[in-house]
């Protein structure tokens, strides 16, 4: 049985390293070869926390029960104490955060390396990932809320880091939306606590099943779900996302889309599937299906008309949320598997595209027009962008295909044909604009000269993700082995 300390070890390592790096900022800035030093300082805590997660995973898989509940206080105060939950899903999610966070933070360290106060940037990035991990392990709604807020707070710093006017505006928008969301969540939590006397996942769930009159609880969960819908940027709560991802530095967009986004879908799964399991507790399936359709269609149609590539990818992130919601809606083991696989691949794909775009921005390219003929002038930047575009379009043998296949199949399994068909239509629209991107890159004559070739070391994290997409596409079993225990927990006993 792991202790609370063991559970929070990865968070402690990452956040502790963040604090240390922040304190040592003046020294690191003056050090010779500071980019390399920074990269090493970022990589080390990730590797250390990976080791601690492997230990945790070992002790989890060595015991029988699928859920491991750990709480700070003993039996009499259990209902009101902060508690943690370890299961196959949270372990998998943490591995995903560590992997994607590792690659995006390394990219961030290299990308921001020459910037003033770059160690601060890395410290904030490490803190964000660290507290998302703690949030993932939390076993009650309040703990989840607190850790989630810490992670979001750290991300504000990542967004405004370059202090551009538009990033300040975007960050303000983000701040207001998130504060609004938090307000909704806290209000909902207070109602739930008043009714059930607890915020623990299992206690709330059993109280909900037992409760004959569910109206008050439904009200409460409407607030909670709306709050988390803002964080997950479900249309119509999505307004902040395109602005934030477009205006913040590319490394921030990569990190946020790879880690924060996936974490927010994870929270939705926890709340919707693990607490409000339909039809036992509340039947929210059809309602969410409608949101899923609106979200993916809006995302894809807006992406279709964007001229700025970074903004286009931001809208693709929204479309991805829609695909994820399809899988959540199905409430089937296959759907959850598809979700969890999509977290990894979708996160890698968006992170990879933001990384490529960051590289192109450094070379002076912003709009689709600017990218004309990149394929012939700088093939090594065009190639990863092409592969990720094909993966987004769901072309085998890339990982995006397997993810979409699982999600659409899950919808069919849940007998929601119409949702699968709409998803497929959306997928075709997505192919349309990604093909336009490929077309512009390879078959137009270059408009702009490439004055500076890309920084070579930035290509290392990019190509690492390219390899990952190809490997996961050809051999998804590598990730599915970690995922399938999580899917076996569904339906919840």
């Amino acid at each position, binding site marked *: 049985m792991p202790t609370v300390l063991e559970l929070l070890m990865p968070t402690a390592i990452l956040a502790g390293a963040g604090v240390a790096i922040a304190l040592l900022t003046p020294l690191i800035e003056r050090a010779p070869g500071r980019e390399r030093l920074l990269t090493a300082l970022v990589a080390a805590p990730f590797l250390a926390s990976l080791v601690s997660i492997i230990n945790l995973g070992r002790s989890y898989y060595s015991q029988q029960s699928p859920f491991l509940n750990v709480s700070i206080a003993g039996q009499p105060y259990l209902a009101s104490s902060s508690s943690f939950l370890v299961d196959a899903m949270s372990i998998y999610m943490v591995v995903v955060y560590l992997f994607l966070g590792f690659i995006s933070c390394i990219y961030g360290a290299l990308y921001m390396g020459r910037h003033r106060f770059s160690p601060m940037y890395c410290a904030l990035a490490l803190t964000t990932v660290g507290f998302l991990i703690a949030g993932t392990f939390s076993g009650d709604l309040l703990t989840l809320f607190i850790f989630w807020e810490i992670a979001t707070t750290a991300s504000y710093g990542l967004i405004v880091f370059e202090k551009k006017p538009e990033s300040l505006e975007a960050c303000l928008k983000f701040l207001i939306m998130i504060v609004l969301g938090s307000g909704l969540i806290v209000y909902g939590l207070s109602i739930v606590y008043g009714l059930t006397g607890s915020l623990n996942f299992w206690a709330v769930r059993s109280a909900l099943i037992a409760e004959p009159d569910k109206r008050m609880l439904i009200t409460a969960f409407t607030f909670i779900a709306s709050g988390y819908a803002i964080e997950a940027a479900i249309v119509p709560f999505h307004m902040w996302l395109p602005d934030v991802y477009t205006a913040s530095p590319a490394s921030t967009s990569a990190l946020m889309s790879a880690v924060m986004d996936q974490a927010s879908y994870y929270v939705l799964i926890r709340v919707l599937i693990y607490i409000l399991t339909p039809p036992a507790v509340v039947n929210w399936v059809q309602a969410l299906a409608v949101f899923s359709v609106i979200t993916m269609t809006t995302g894809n149609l807006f992406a279709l008309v964007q001229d700025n590539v970074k903004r286009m990818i931001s809208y693709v992130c929204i479309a991805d949320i829609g695909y994820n919601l399809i899988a959540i809606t199905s409430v089937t083991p296959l759907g959850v598997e598809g979700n969890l696989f999509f977290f990894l691949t979708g996160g890698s794909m968006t992170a990879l595209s933001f990384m490529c775009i960051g590289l192109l921005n450094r070379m002076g390219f912003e709009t689709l027009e600017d990218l004309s003929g990149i394929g012939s002038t700088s093939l090594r930047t065009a190639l990863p962008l092409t592969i990720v575009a094909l993966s987004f379009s769901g072309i085998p043998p890339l990982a995006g295909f397997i993810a979409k*296949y699982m999600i659409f*199949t899950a919808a069919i399994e849940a007998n929601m044909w119409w949702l699968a068909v709409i998803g497929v239509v959306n997928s075709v629209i997505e192919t349309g604009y990604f093909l336009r991107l490929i*077309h512009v890159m390879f*078959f137009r004559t270059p408009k702009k000269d490439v004055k500076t070739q890309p920084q070579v070391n930035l290509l290392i994290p990019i190509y690492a993700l390219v390899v990952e997409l190809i490997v996961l596409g050809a051999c*998804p079993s590598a990730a599915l082995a970690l995922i399938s225990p999580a899917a076996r927990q569904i339906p919840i006993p």
Partner: protein
Amino acid sequence: MSYALSAMLLLTTLSPPLVYIVGRRSNKAAAGVLCAILAADAFLLLTTLPTVAAGDSYTESYYWIPILGSIFTLFVDGTSLSLSIVTLALMIAATVFSTRYLESEGNNASYYAFLGFLAVGLVGVFVTSCLLAFYFFWELMLIPSYFIIAKWGYSDAHRVAFKFFIFTHAGAVLVILGIGATFMTTNTLDMLQAGTLLLGVPDETVRLILIFFTIGFAVKMAIVPLHMWLPDAHSEAPAPMSALLSGVIIEAGGYAIFRISMRMVYPAVAGTWYGTDFLHALTLLGVFSAYYGALNALASEDIKRIIAYSSISHMGYALFGLSLLSTSTVAGSGALLHLVNHAVSKGLFFLTAGSVMRGTGVRDVRRLGGLASKMPVTAVCSAIAAFSIAGTPGFACFMSEFLMLIGGFQSANLDSFDLIPSALMVVATVLCAAYALRLFWKVFLEKLQVEKAREAPVAMLAPMIILAGLVILLGVWPRLFLDLIVAGK
């Protein structure tokens, strides 16, 4: 257990990087390496011949994604062996043809690498019985085709390539819905097992599966009204690519309708009103496509567009034959044989068109004429292709069309509905003869208009001559593939 098929796929998968590296130095070397690999593939495939000719199917299975019920099964029976052998032959011909045809484009290392990719998809589609792997290969055909058309195509190639990609990809996502539904209801992704398991599935679901699959494949097969991408894509692609598009890729659609729609899903609705209506709809669509393609071919003036429309017409024939599969084995075998024969004839036809375009720089048939004196070898090859497409006895397509028409009347005995379509199909052969011979007449006979026309170099003539020989061989000895196809039943 032997490893012939997996070795073949592995070898082909390794070809693109290899070809690319070699191709940086010289185009000829790249083509040579690619041809060698394709020839080795053909050899590996032929090692399965004894098993297949005896009427068994040859399989290899590997665990792939157990959680999705997917076992990577490689499988050949007579039909898939015939089609994949023809595919390899056509690919070799197209590769050799390209060395001189694309000479003026400079270094084409990436072109040959894309051809290698295409080979993986094309061969893979025919030799797997796992639906997921099938889809992998199915979509793998798309990416290299897109790049080849967009980069080495003629005027407005990007728009055409985009249209091609979006159309066929939209078809493919319907296929993925079908695959998902099949997996959901039967819990297996193996085509052969799923066929049995689908028999116990409720009717409504099977109907949806059947429709999803068939529409998806019909897009690739370019059945009217889903054909809009074909005339553009086939006429704007470089000639060797057109040969492969018309020769193999749309045949893959026909093969998929045979293997998945007809063999796997259809038995579950056979005998119901829905099954009967479905077959009748396919028959009518086949007839309609045959006429639509033939009439458009008669009205076109662009040498490659005529041939492209002719492909629509001939796919109409194949669909007609396939739709009679359950009532007449003769028609079914004829349809499959037609896929083989049409692949060779149409491949040859496109290569001769490419030779004409390279020799004269003109593609409008009104401005061509009398080339027989300037380009005698091309003229003879083109005549052979035209006669085959026209359905003249002694040339490849005659035998398969004959079988389909006979089969049509045979099945009209069981189902009187088939009588009129079969009669219409007989009439359609006249139109086929009309456009094929019109093309030959306008380009090679009449008065010479392009004085500076020159005969193609040997590297382009050789593949044409070999394919022409194959057309005649298949015409006089149809049993070569027919026995295999019939054995595979």
